[in-house]
């Protein structure tokens, strides 16, 4: 286990305190008395103008007040709208209204500017103190009208109610279809059936009879692993003497243990997190290492990581302490204690190691935050950050909570009990976090090497020739003071954090210490004795990044006193990361460090002057076999460097050579989040980042945890972990378990109990079976949040095993009248397979499936129709190397046409329920696409090879078993044979030898890929 690292560092920047939001102007201001001339001026000139130009949106009769601003009375004008008071009486230049009609900051009226004369009248009116008519009866708008009915909304909507304990209802019908099965064996599944049957019975309905074994097996294979069973697997199941349900239970258990389970269900999950491997926008730049996240999800599902932990890892996996000790799961009590805001972190919640390679697996989950689109050269960087955070919160709140929190970005939610302040409370967590390329250490080899390096170094006496020569710069040279900071390795947060004081500088006063943050190994345990951070002191091969606290750009330049080789510095402005791809508008924010072993001053200028007032942090990056040393960082107005400060500020340590024999492997990299210092967000009025409202503390939704939450602690960083622990508290937050079980239900039955799986809000659908939903959620939590066992319980219900075909004409008529949409599950639904399952089935049937798991994606195959900027230089293979579809790369601007045609969602937000559409492109693909033809050919050739001595009839049967998990009927046999002979004739093949020719069999295989039974599951 690594020790927490600490480092004394003589760099840093003070974080400017956010200026307080000015207090709202008192609106109780008495209307002064105006002389007759002023009133006359108002009556004759101003009021008609307001009525004509403004009242449509801001008048007493306005349907809806725009921007919350009423100009109906003087009090209203003074109170103003969302952006504050409309005027400052007597001061036109300070009045928003006057600015707006001059098209400064706001542009009003929005369609056309007022004629100059009218602008002059209104300015004059403000200058005169905004006189109003004597009969000042115009009533001010009642603020209560605008009050947000949070409690009322919470009380009214089902989804806010806690999860209720409901006993399974008694049912009249015997729901146990097979009398040979002991009901106790399937008690949990039977409970689910009872809920379903009870609803059916209320309507005089019942379940359909059980599906036949072959149909059932095909169904369960697709449901759990997304592939059809092989003929041998089907034969085995059919031959199983045990009752169907027991035999099925064995199959289910086996499939849940298959590595393909994770691949199938990871694809479901990836739809929720808009998973892609490029960044879209203009040039579709790569999103490096994205596949590590995909592999994480597959592994997590295969390992049946408890879902609550899965959520915590997503939100804050980077903050879980590393300590590879199996620990008991936390009780609710410990959770409550943890979530209650204690700063100590010695919980049973620790990071999870990769099962074989031992690196920090939990960290990978956090990559989901950054799987969205990203844009280079935004003219409005802050606006772009707002758009990114909007997308992150949209995905976060829909995927985990089934709530549309992003709807509250511009205004309180129109329908749900979510305020704008909730949105910005969440946004603060992201403002306090950064994107990182995380370093992972398979098998702990780097950690071990570092330990050995340290041992080796300490054995040697410290270098006597390095003397302490640092001199204190003279105060007159300083632009801004930099103070000593401590920093804490994010991947290994420490329980207690010792603040390190630097008494080296005589300059007082000093702001409270702000931490720097390091990842990786290169920056060692802190600054060396000379107060220098140095990434090369242990070994050049070590990688690491050191990040500053967030600060505000107050000067047009930054000076770095540094040295190094093959290293880099980045200044991250408003979270902008795309300078790696394009320097446009961010020129100079990143630079290479190459100083030939000397100390230099680097002046960072470039476009920095255009970013004054922006939030930023600095990254010192040693990501190769190089090093970087940094002594101090200064703001500058452009004056000369403080070179006279004392020459060699701190001699460089000799780059170590004696330890070269110690082998240091390259770390694995992954996209992840990491903590910065705590930064609260301010409300963006009407969603505009240019119009800031009050600051909102980081916290959970008010409707769940109230307004006064003490869940975060500014000293502890972003507080994401505390948020995550609050989210998974099923007692106070019913959403996480309900949304999760509903998603599983959706994938197994084709429709969720709540049909709108991503929206449990007022505009979503009400649950068809609310008691069942709560029963499932409650048992899910009680069962340790196990997704696999949840799937097993549902799949082993009688409801799931019903036939999809109507039992009889008479019954069918009745059920059709009573339950036309099958809301009550009187029979099993028929689904079209998802695009991935269609393609994967073809690969399997063709004998061309490469079952290899994990790793970098196979590049997407490019057709001539996939054009545009950022098109990859080379196309991926037509067959995707035979890998499952989840391993084909997802290039945002070059999405696979076959996947798109069969409704794989465009990765832009959470899509828990895919469309199931019907487009000619689907038929054209199955008819003519080279991939489908290739698979048909391979399948035919494989079959010929494997069944060389078969009669045509036997071979036809074999193809049916391969593709449809059943034998052909006699009629189908005859038709297939006739077809083969016709085709043979048309190809001029001999009447007696045609059956050895792959061409005719390829045609039959092609037809079987096109029959609906292949792409639909009964």
């Amino acid at each position, binding site marked *: 286990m690594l020790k927490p690292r600490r480092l004394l560092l003589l760099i840093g920047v003070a974080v400017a305190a956010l200026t307080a939001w000015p207090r709202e102007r008192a609106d109780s201001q008495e209307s002064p008395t105006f002389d007759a001339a002023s009133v006359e001026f108002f009556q004759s000139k101003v009021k008609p103008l307001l009525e004509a130009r403004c009242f449509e949106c801001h008048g007493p009769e306005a349907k809806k007040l725009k921007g919350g601003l009423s100009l109906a009375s003087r009090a209203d004008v003074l109170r103003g709208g969302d952006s504050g008071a409309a005027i400052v009486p007597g001061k036109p230049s300070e009045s928003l209204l006057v600015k707006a009609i001059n098209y400064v900051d706001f542009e009003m009226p929005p369609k056309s500017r007022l004629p100059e004369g009218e602008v002059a009248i209104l300015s004059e009116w403000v200058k005169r103190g905004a006189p109003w008519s004597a009969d000042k009866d115009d009533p001010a708008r009642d603020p209560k009208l605008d009050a947000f009915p949070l409690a009322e909304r919470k009380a009214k909507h089902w989804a806010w109610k806690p999860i209720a304990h409901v006993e399974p209802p008694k049912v009249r019908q015997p729901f146990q279809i097979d009398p040979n099965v002991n009901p106790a064996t399937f008690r949990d599944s039977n409970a689910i059936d009872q809920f379903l049957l009870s609803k059916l019975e209320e309507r005089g309905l019942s379940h359909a009879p059980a599906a036949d074994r072959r149909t059932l097996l095909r169904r369960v294979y697709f449901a759990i692993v997304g592939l059809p069973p092989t003929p041998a697997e089907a034969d085995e199941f059919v031959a199983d003497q045990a009752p169907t349900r027991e035999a099925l239970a064995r199959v289910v258990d086996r499939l849940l243990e298959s590595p393909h389970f994770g691949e199938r269900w990871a694809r479901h999950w990836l739809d929720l997190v808009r998973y892609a491997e490029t960044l879209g926008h203009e040039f579709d730049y790569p999103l490096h290492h994205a596949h590590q996240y995909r592999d994480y999800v597959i592994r997590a599902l295969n390992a049946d990581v408890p879902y609550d932990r899965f959520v915590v890892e997503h939100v804050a996996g980077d903050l879980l302490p590393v300590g590879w000790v199996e620990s008991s799961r936390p009780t609710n009590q410990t959770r409550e204690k943890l979530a209650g805001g204690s700063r100590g972190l010695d919980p049973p919640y620790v990071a999870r190691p990769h099962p074989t390679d031992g690196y920090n697996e939990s960290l990978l989950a956090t990559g989901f935050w950054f799987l969205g689109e990203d844009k280079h050269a935004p003219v*409005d960087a802050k606006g772009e950050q707002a758009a990114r955070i909007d997308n992150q919160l949209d995905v976060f709140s829909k995927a985990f909570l089934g709530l549309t929190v992003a709807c509250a970005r511009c205004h309180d939610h129109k329908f749900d009990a979510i305020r704008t302040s909730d949105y910005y409370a969440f946004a603060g967590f992201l403002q306090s976090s950064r994107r990182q390329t995380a370093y992972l250490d398979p098998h702990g080899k780097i950690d071990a090497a570092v330990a050995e390096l340290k041992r080796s170094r300490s054995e040697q006496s410290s270098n006597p020739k390095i003397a302490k020569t640092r001199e204190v710069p003279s105060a007159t040279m300083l632009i801004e003071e930099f103070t000593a900071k401590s920093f804490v390795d994010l991947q290994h947060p420490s329980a207690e954090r010792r603040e390190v004081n630097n008494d080296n500088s005589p300059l007082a006063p000093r702001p409270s210490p702000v931490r720097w943050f390091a990842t990786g190994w290169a920056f060692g345990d802190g600054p060396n004795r000379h107060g220098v951070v140095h990434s090369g002191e242990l070994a050049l091969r070590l990688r690491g990044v050191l990040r500053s606290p967030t600060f505000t750009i107050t000067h047009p330049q930054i000076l770095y006193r540094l040295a190094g080789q093959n290293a880099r510095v980045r200044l991250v402005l408003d979270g902008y990361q795309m300078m790696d791809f394009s320097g446009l508008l961010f020129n100079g924010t990143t630079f290479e460090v190459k100083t030939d072993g000397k100390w230099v001053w680097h002046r960072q200028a470039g476009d920095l002057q255009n970013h004054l007032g922006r939030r930023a942090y600095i990254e010192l990056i040693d990501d190769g076999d190089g090093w970087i040393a940094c002594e101090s960082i200064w703001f500058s107005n452009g004056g000369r460097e403080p070179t006279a400060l004392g020459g060699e500020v701190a001699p460089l340590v000799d780059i170590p050579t004696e330890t070269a024999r110690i082998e240091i492997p390259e770390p694995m990299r992954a996209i992840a989040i990491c903590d910065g210092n705590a930064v609260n967000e301010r409300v963006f009025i009407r969603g505009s980042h240019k119009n800031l409202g009050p600051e909102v503390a980081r916290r959970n939704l008010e409707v769940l945890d109230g307004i006064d939450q003490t869940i975060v602690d500014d000293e502890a960083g972003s507080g994401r972990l505390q948020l995550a622990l609050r989210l998974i508290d099923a007692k106070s937050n019913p959403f996480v378990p309900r949304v999760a079980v509903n998603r599983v239900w959706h994938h197994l039955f084709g429709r969720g109990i709540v049909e709108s799986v991503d929206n449990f809000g007022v505009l979503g659908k009400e649950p068809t079976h609310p008691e069942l939903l709560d029963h499932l959620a409650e048992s899910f939590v009680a069962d340790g949040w196990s997704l696999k066992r949840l799937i097993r319980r549902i799949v082993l219900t009688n409801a799931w095993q019903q036939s999809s075909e109507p039992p009889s004409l008479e019954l069918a008529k009745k059920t059709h009248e009573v339950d036309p949409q099958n809301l009550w599950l009187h029979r099993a639904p028929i*689904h079209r397979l998802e695009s991935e399952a269609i393609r994967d089935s073809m690969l399997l049937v063709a004998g061309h499936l490469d079952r290899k798991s994990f790793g970098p994606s196979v590049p997407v195959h490019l057709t001539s129709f996939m054009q545009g900027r950022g098109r990859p230089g080379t196309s991926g293979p037509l067959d995707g190397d035979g890998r499952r579809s989840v391993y084909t790369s997802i290039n945002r601007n070059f999405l696979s046409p076959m996947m798109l045609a069969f409704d794989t969602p465009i990765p832009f937000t959470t899509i828990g329920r895919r469309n199931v559409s019907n487009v000619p492109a689907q038929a054209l693909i199955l008819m003519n696409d080279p991939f489908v033809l290739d698979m048909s050919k391979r399948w035919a050739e494989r079959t010929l090879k494997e069944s060389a001595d078969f009669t045509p009839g036997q071979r036809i049967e074999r193809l049916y078993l391969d593709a449809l998990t059943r034998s052909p009927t006699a009629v189908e046999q005859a038709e297939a044979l006739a077809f083969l002979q016709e085709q043979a004739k048309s190809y001029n093949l001999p009447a007696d030898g045609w059956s050895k020719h792959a061409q005719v069999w390829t045609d039959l295989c092609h*037809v079987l890929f096109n029959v609906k039974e292949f792409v639909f599951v009964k």
Partner: protein
Amino acid sequence: MHCRRFVTQSQTRRAMLQSCASGFGTVALASLLNEPAFGAEATSTSETNPFAARKPHFDAQAKSVIFLYMDGGVSQVDSFDPKPRLDAENGKPFGLKIEKTQFNNIGNTLASPWKFQQYGESGIPVSDLFPHVAQHVDKLAVVRSLTSQFPEHTNANYFLHTGHGQQGRPSMGAWVGYGLGAECQDLPGFVVLNGGLIPPGGLDNFNSGFLPASFQASVLGAGDAPVANIKRAEPTADAQQRKLDLMRRLDRKLLEQTGPVDALESAIANYELASRMQMAVPQLMDLTNETEATQKAYGLQADFANTRTFGRTCLLARRMVERGVRFIELTCPGGNGDRWDQHQGLKDGHTKNALTVDQPIAALLADLTQRGLLDSTLVVWSGEFGRTPFAQGSESDGRDHNPFAFSIWMAGGGIKGGMTFGQTDEYGYKCVENRLEMHDLHATMLHLLGVDHTKQTFRFSGRDMRLTDVHGHVVNEILA
């Protein structure tokens, strides 16, 4: 056998499927599998099925849209918005406060290299870039006050196409298909005729976003196989036909088992459409039966290769209109500099781009008029934003992006011709009169098609989404 068991109850749906003559759009609409896969007939009327075909909200002037997309951003002050003051102050520091631009490399005021002349009865000035289109100026409503919210191509492209600056929303054509379906039996309702350049943002400019995939554009290339997988794989039509026959027989047996399942039935019907499309697309693309005069008028014999390419797509657009394709978008050919995006080399780039599109567009307007199709065809000419009236960089002859005002024109389909709408300041930098948002353009386009933009919604992500979001006003002043 119970295949047609529900036939009496399901008339509504089936009748709709058969009778609405809607081709791709509505058959797809009617056959979405989002609803339960069986027994859904009784509820699948237009009241409960959000995807059912809809009549226009009111009588529509326009039945089709041809959207001439001028990728990269045409300069308004060099095309339809003359500004003498630029000549007067050429080379001098710009006279207005300047907002940050994409390249933020602000040069001096830059006069237009082109002269403007007045044309037609309306006397609307058009620059020498467009001598052919200028002949039709009395058919155009020139809007000089459109704005965008984005100075970056990709966002502005998404905004123009989908009403939203980020990836993931449905394109205009998809909304139109969702609202109205198509009138064409054997061609897609939303077609992009790709002249060569897929705009920044990629194919998602033409996608169906959260709407079903049914509504996404079919991108037609100008080449041998214009639609993906349209070419039959089999050596002979018979060989393919036998495959399809066998498939049909097998599918029918499945239906007999399951009863009438919408999803299955429409997937089967889908093959009929695909087969028809296989026939129809080559016929559509075959221009040999167009007269020599027509071909010449469209520029198919022009010296400049890009004129020939764009001319071909314009002619194809007319042929699609005749066949009832609902929404046709044309993209620009490559090789004229960087699209219309002349950060430098304004004169050369704009000249080549104009040469590419001017004659074919004029021919299209003339041809549509002559065939009596212009009244029912809305033609929209627009880029994603305009260009700055000042130069980019100190010694440049290029212009940066300008989202604050740009000129577009519309013609036909209920548009009042021979008028201008909106005004910019004396430099053509920002709007000062009748400023329009992109949403207003969309609202107006939908209006002309008979769709009330506030009523055409699709519930997604907890909201009833619209092409115009919560904005947009129909620009009544430019309606005939």
